[in-house]
């Protein structure tokens, strides 16, 4: 182990030795090193978040045939910093009827629930926070804290729109959590472990090849969990103005906004880890740990871009359609996919890798075709019923 091949861990060990040299006992020195490491990681993530504001504004501008911020600094890169300064010196308003403690706690919890995800994201084989053996469920648990932040914000604002928005958000988040958790079981089955680092290490074939349907379900439920278009019913401007964060302004709104952008990017990162080989890219990651981090960041940015692409292209879905899509299509499909994957994985486990991959891929395709055929048949039946009603009405009108 030397500084060139493993800079982060060597630096951490060195720091720990320094602290012990100052007369600290081991657990406290470890805790202090962790504190500094966590602080560095969170600071870098927040810097990334500032950069994401710029990315988001530039990309949405391009989708809407505009240029976007281009005045402050080169390519408008300094724009988000100007935004932050504006947010900081804005007046801190707490509405009169608000429940003060809960109202101020909600944005903090909202951002913290997203930041917490970075504790388990394996940035490279050597650079990671913790390699938790229940990391996949940890992802869901952090999402639960985000849901809680939304409900706290909506309730404490003392505003009808806010409460309505919070209810919608929570109904949507908890509904789409089911297919998401079921789909999270699939990489777990394929790997035989819930540790994200092991999941990345076992992905000699990217899981998106083995379970393309699983990836699509994960993407849809991730977008719903984020509350981004087409699932942005929670802030639907034309109906409930801004939803749960209507009463928030200044830095408190800024925290919600930063949390949302970072959440989207973080989900891009988790998509990369779970389905696109994480920090691995055809052996390129072995050059240097920091190259591996770069690979993961590029993959996460691509995932984030797909989420943005969908957000700025697709119109908002209606609430009954949203719930029907989840409970009547995605959830049964996810359970079917889980059963099929478990059986295929167990049957083809000992065979050649290409047989295994092809078998899983084809079973996904067959399942998708079957699901679409069922959908088509039920739509046909519904259309016939409607036509029958219409012709009956026409007949009675004719008499």
């Amino acid at each position, binding site marked *: 182990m030397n500084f060139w091949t493993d800079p982060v861990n060597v630096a951490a060990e060195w720091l720990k030795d320094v602290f012990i040299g100052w007369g600290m006992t081991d*657990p*406290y020195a470890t*805790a202090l090193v962790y504190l500094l490491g966590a602080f560095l990681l969170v600071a870098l993530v927040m810097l990334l978040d500032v950069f994401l504001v710029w990315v988001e504004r530039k990309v949405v501008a391009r989708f809407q045939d505009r240029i976007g911020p281009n005045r402050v600094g080169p390519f408008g890169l300094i724009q988000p910093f100007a935004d932050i300064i504006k947010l900081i010196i804005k007046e801190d308003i707490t509405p009169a009827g608000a429940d003060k403690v*809960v109202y101020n706690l909600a944005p903090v919890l909202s951002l913290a629930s997203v930041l917490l995800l970075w504790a388990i994201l394996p940035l490279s084989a050597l650079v990671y926070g913790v390699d*938790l*053996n*229940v990391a996949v*469920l*940890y992802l*869901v*648990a952090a*999402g*639960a*804290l985000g*849901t*809680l932040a939304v*409900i*706290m914000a909506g*309730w404490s604002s003392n505003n009808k729109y806010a*409460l309505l928005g919070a*209810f919608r958000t*929570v109904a949507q988040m*908890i509904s789409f*959590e089911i297919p998401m958790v079921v789909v999270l079981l699939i990489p777990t089955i394929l790997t035989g472990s*819930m540790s994200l680092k092991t999941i990345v290490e076992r992905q000699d074939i990217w899981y998106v090849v083995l379970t393309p349907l699983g990836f699509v379900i994960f993407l849809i439920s991730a977008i719903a969990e984020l509350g981004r278009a087409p699932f942005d019913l929670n802030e639907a401007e034309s109906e409930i103005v801004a939803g749960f964060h209507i009463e928030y302004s200044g830095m408190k709104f800024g925290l919600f906004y930063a949390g949302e952008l970072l959440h989207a990017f973080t989900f891009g990162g988790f998509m990369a880890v779970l389905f696109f080989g994480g920090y691995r890219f055809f052996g390129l990651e072995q050059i240097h740990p920091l190259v591996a981090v770069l690979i993961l960041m590029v993959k996460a940015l691509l995932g984030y871009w797909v989420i943005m692409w969908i957000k700025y292209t697709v119109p908002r879905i209606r609430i009954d359609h949203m719930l029907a899509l989840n409970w009547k299509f995605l959830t049964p499909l996810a359970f079917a996919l889980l059963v099929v994957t478990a059986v295929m994985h167990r049957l083809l486990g000992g065979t050649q890798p290409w047989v295994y991959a092809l078998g899983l891929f084809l079973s996904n395709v067959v399942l998708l075709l079957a699901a679409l055929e069922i959908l088509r048949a039920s739509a046909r039946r519904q259309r016939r019923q409607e036509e029958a009603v219409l012709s009956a009405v026409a007949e009675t009108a004719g008499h």
Partner: protein
Amino acid sequence: MDASQIIFGLTALLIIFSALRVVTTRNMVHAALWLIVTLLGVTVLYALLQANFLAVVQVVVYVGAIAILFIFAIMLTRREMRDGGPQLNKGWPLAALISLAVFGGLLALLYNAPVSERLAASLEGQDTLGALGQALVSPDAYVLPFEVASVLLLAALIGAVYVALNKKQESDK
């Protein structure tokens, strides 16, 4: 006293305090939020015991689902946010006596059990999750409870349908 004992003490204090707030606060939503603090405190205890799976499940199920259900229930059934009635009813001395007796019994049990020697071995590095999975599906271990759990959940679902259908018919009237 080492660091983990200090953390345990602080967490235990937090759990007791928030649990007391759950029953003493008059604001129903505050009670639910204090309950969430209690549940998160229990998560810390699981983490201290190195029960990783239970710790995350505690957050996923209790904070993510049950607490949300409580908040929904409060918002759906109560028009009044504040509970105006008396907080104690006639049975409180009896309830206090029973709780004290149970507490005393538990304390005596724990005090006499040779817990400290048996739990000395650290679980660090062991595949507790794998062991749990094996135990859940092995025929000579817990496979029957595992399957019965699904039937129990199904029964809960049917109960939920019954309650909801009643509510629906009422609102239709």
